[in-house]
């Protein structure tokens, strides 16, 4: 089940048989991605099974007036710091899946926050064992979609890489906006937006809205990843400058990975015309 390849898929596009991975860098990101996974399931009246360390852990994406039978929270952390028992945890999940099928659910979403198990007794092995069991249960399924998450700040890089390699699908945020011309996706580390495609007058309102939301959600600098941007018109540059003026006092707007030809357009204008905007990161040619 270890794969050298993986697909990146917005969380809304995850489908039965997907066993997806998310290493989040903060509650914001977890709420945005895992929260969407849980919420979309609940809104579709699918069964959502949420596996976590302790029953006291918050579940992201809960909807108001939630019918109780839609959500089951399972606490899997063994009391007293014992070693994670992958067989027992997998059996607990299998029992839930069976119950859901018997209850007539069309689809089941299984979300697991495994952060608690990263530093557990026995090291990574029991966790990888659990992942293998999960994969065997989910991959052939036509009704179960799984999303495994950990807080990347709590794991060692080698452990995170091993966990990541155990998933063929990597969950990405749902785009804030996407059509055939432009795609806008929130980013979390660093905080900001990734813009790809082409930005012209027909998408100015969308850019303006997305920047306002990113600015409101970000205490420091707002980063814009422009690696996938093929064109930016002068009106959009004006909107970036306007957003920088409105964000001033809290931070700058930093343009990351801007393609060389777009950077040259900005340099022709001159940075003194664009207060509050700055460049960082390696530039693509």
């Amino acid at each position: 089940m270890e794969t050298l390849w993986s697909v990146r898929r917005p969380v809304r596009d995850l489908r039965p048989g997907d066993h997806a991975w998310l290493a989040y860098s903060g509650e914001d990101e977890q709420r945005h991605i895992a929260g969407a996974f849980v919420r979309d399931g609940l809104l579709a009246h699918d069964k959502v099974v949420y596996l976590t360390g302790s029953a006291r852990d918050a579940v992201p994406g809960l909807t108001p007036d939630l019918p109780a039978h839609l959500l089951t929270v399972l606490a899997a952390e063994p009391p007293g710091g014992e070693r994670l028992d992958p067989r027992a945890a997998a059996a607990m999940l299998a029992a839930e899946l069976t119950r859901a099928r018997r209850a007539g659910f069309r689809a089941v979403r299984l979300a697991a926050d495994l952060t608690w198990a990263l530093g557990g007794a026995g090291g990574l092995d029991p966790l990888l064992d659990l992942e293998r069991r999960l994969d065997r249960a989910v991959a052939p399924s036509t009704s179960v979609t799984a999303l495994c998450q950990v807080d990347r700040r709590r794991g060692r890089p080698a452990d995170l890489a091993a966990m990541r390699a155990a998933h063929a699908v990597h969950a990405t945020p749902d785009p804030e906006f996407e059509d055939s011309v432009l795609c806008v996706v929130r980013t979390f580390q660093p905080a900001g937006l990734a813009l790809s495609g082409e930005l012209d007058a027909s998408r100015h309102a969308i850019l303006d809205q997305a920047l306002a939301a990113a600015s409101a959600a970000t205490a420091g600098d707002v980063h814009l990843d422009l690696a996938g941007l093929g064109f930016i018109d002068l009106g959009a540059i004006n909107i970036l400058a306007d957003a920088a003026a409105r964000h001033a006092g809290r931070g700058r707007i930093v343009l990351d990975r801007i393609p060389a030809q777009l950077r040259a357009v900005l340099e022709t204008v001159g940075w003194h015309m664009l207060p509050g905007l700055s460049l960082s990161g390696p530039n693509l040619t």
Partner: protein
Amino acid sequence: MTLEHRAFMYSGPEDFLAVTVPFLESGLESGQAVVAVAREPNLTALRDTFAGHGTAIEYFDSAAFYRHPVRTLRDYQAIVKRSEPRSVCALAEPVWGRWDERQTLEWIRYESLINVVFAGSGARALCPYDTATLPDDVLAEARRTHPLLLTDGRDLINGRYVDPAVFGAGCDRAWRAGRPEGAEYLPIDGADLHALRSFVAERAAEHGLGRQPAQNLVTAVNEVAANALQHGVPPRGLWTWRDGDDLLCEVGDNGFWRPGPFTGFIPPDSALQQGFGLWTVRLLVDLVELKAGWDGTFVRLHTRR
């Protein structure tokens, strides 16, 4: 603070130094930010003369500083801004031998625009004209674009000076005859300008423009077309054709938005100001011509390969 914009006619290096050195000294003495933009060998002669002043004077070679009139205005404006609250004392010797007739007209217009762009800057600018090498028409036009003339060490109010708005309107009348028969046409009829950008990018590649000039041209045409969509009246369209090394892109609409003689020439304070778009269009291509008439409004962009 008003601008002092002076021309002086010189003949030979001694004559040049006899006027420019006291001018730069007066700038240093009065605490102005002093810049010297001159052609060689004049530039080296000035550096030698002021060798004892260290970095008090900022030097630029005219050959690099005067490449594109609107970019040169931008660069002078940047110097004025970063020197604040000090005012600027600039020796400013343009380059004249490199341009064709239309480009020369644009540089003469540039001298006239200096009076508008830096009107309130308190700057003092001295523009030397070499009577030994410059053609008579350049010398004659200098008298129409500089309000002050330094003659025999004395400032004279220049009676032949022409108001920049009048001067600029005269330049706009230099619009040359219509498009050739073979010009390609693309209607601009939807809000989506993607097809227009592809069209221009293809013509740019066929003409042999480099990647960056091509990207600049696409950005400029896109902006003019977006303006035509927002402010113009249908039918709107883009014509492209080649004229020697120039690729021409002309956006026309049936409206009449009457650009003024300063439209797009005055650097905005920032990207947030109105006028940023057309000013940037002028920066991105080699030459922009505007024409508003009974048959509509036309913006013609020249890019040389």
